[in-house]
């Protein structure tokens, strides 16, 4: 199964010392690390969902049959879907603007995107906890403007999680979309205009379809990333909007119920991998170019 490359075997004349490592052997340390501390632990965890407390599918029956857990599944999909839609609605115009902007202005926007992306996740979430609280700046400004009479509940609920998660996901949708739009040949849109299309027609019938593969791929990525988020929903959401990742943590940490924890982990894992498979199947890297 292991064979040296041609060039490597060509060096056999080198003075006889330690045998040269083959290419496969070079990957062995990382492989051992991953098998031992990634594959094995994850498999053991998933196995426990069908062995504890008694062998069988009892954990799955309980997890998928109870309305409490069903609400958590619904909420997880609801939050991820909302975040994805809002990110797309904001991200598309921004990516488009970036593609037509003069280089200097664009590089400022890129720097800010990177700064926000690279800033510690907890620091960003903390900022939103403070901004959105009852006595926070957002409520004060809204009251000051006379838009509301009393503070809105913006945190520990769906609004809080959606704002906080959209904030985190925006760069992940803007950056790939920018790449896709930048690659579209402006001549195609010129041709549309020459053929008599007005701006709306060009947008709906030319630009959007051309950007669609990038939008779909970006949206799917953001959706999948959101499904497994733990920190931001835990800090900005309320107990009524618990998400799947928090449920897994709760099973393990507070309830010490490894069977249910494993079952919930398997559900999250299966959904995630299935969506990634869709992504690879329909928007494999060769299709990301917007063609």
């Amino acid at each position, binding site marked *: *199964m292991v064979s040296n490359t041609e060039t490597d075997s060509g060096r056999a004349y080198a003075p006889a010392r330690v045998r040269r490592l083959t290419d496969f052997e070079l990957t062995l340390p990382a492989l051992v690390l991953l098998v031992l501390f990634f594959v*094995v632990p994850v498999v053991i965890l998933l196995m426990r969902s069908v062995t504890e407390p008694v062998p069988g599918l009892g954990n799955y029956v309980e997890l998928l049959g109870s309305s409490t857990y069903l609400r958590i599944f619904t909420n997880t999909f609801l939050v991820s879907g909302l975040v994805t839609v809002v990110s797309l609605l904001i991200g598309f115009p921004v990516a488009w603007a970036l593609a*037509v902007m003069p280089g200097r202005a664009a590089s400022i926007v890129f720097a800010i995107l990177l700064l926000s992306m690279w800033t510690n996740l*907890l620091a960003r979430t903390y900022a939103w906890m403070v901004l959105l*609280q009852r006595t926070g700046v957002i409520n004060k400004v809204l009251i000051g403007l006379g838009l509301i009479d009393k503070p809105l509940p913006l945190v520990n609920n769906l609004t809080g999680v959606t704002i906080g998660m959209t904030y985190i996901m925006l760069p992940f949708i803007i950056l790939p979309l920018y790449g896709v739009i930048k690659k579209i040949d402006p001549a195609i849109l010129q041709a549309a205009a020459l053929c008599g299309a007005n701006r709306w027609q060009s947008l709906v019938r030319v630009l959007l379809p051309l950007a669609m593969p990038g939008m779909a791929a970006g949206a799917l990525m953001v959706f999948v990333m959101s499904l497994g988020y733990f920190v931001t929903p835990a800090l900005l959401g309320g107990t009524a909007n618990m998400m799947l990742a928090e449920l897994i943590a709760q099973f393990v940490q507070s309830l010490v119920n490894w069977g249910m924890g494993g079952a919930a982990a398997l559900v999250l894992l299966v959904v995630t991998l299935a969506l990634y498979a869709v992504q690879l199947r329909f928007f494999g890297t060769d299709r990301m170019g917007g063609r």
Partner: protein
Amino acid sequence: MLLNLNRLGWWKLVLFGITVLTTAFLLLPILFIAALSFGSSQWLIFPPPSWTLRWYQELFADPRWLASAWTSFQIAIIVTVLSVLLGLATSFGLTRGRFAFREGLKALFLTPMILPVVVLAVALYAFFLKIGLNGTLTGFVISHLVLALPFSILSIGNALEGFDKSIEDAAVLCGASPLEAKVRVTLPAISHGIFSAAIFSFLTSWDEVVVAIFMSSPTLQTLPVKVWATLRQDLTPVVAAASTLLILLTVLLMVLVAVVRKGLKS
């Protein structure tokens, strides 16, 4: 014409308006936290009644904050070194190897990147309970290494794929040993990939919180865990001070990256 700045007409104003607002939205929390960390209000009232360095004093006076920062730094440095070394070996093997299952192996190496972190966190926590690695530096290093390695393999692998191997072969033909050719010809040529790998690995470990929450013990915790635990109690401005220092570090890293990229290009 939709991709031509001069022919967008009033649409240009709409697009740029949304972009300016979005940029403000992205920047706002970061500036806000930095400002609040100097404000005197315990309840984070904005604008603050007066300015103070009190929260920074509290931060530096508390040995637990310093200890957790030091723990985070140690872990991140060890993870960075190991991740780059393993990433180098693995990328060489994967890029140049012609063995069976190469594609499958590549996919396996990248899986920790796409898997929900909470699953890995819970799985490793259970595993480490059995072998006694929870709450140890080794445990933190191993779990962060699993998370950082994909980024390292990707960065170095990309750089290596863009490097023409015949240049290395030429060095060997000119009398360099294979190892010498790799160290003196190939490594400098892919240094930008190694640099990215190091930065990504460092940040992955330094900012990681989900696995760390499970791994930490009362005596050993990382900075993000300390922030997390504090936030679950209350929104003290001390966290604003800590966050501001973290933001400062981010800015420094970004400047470093920009400078190094420029240096590598010229």
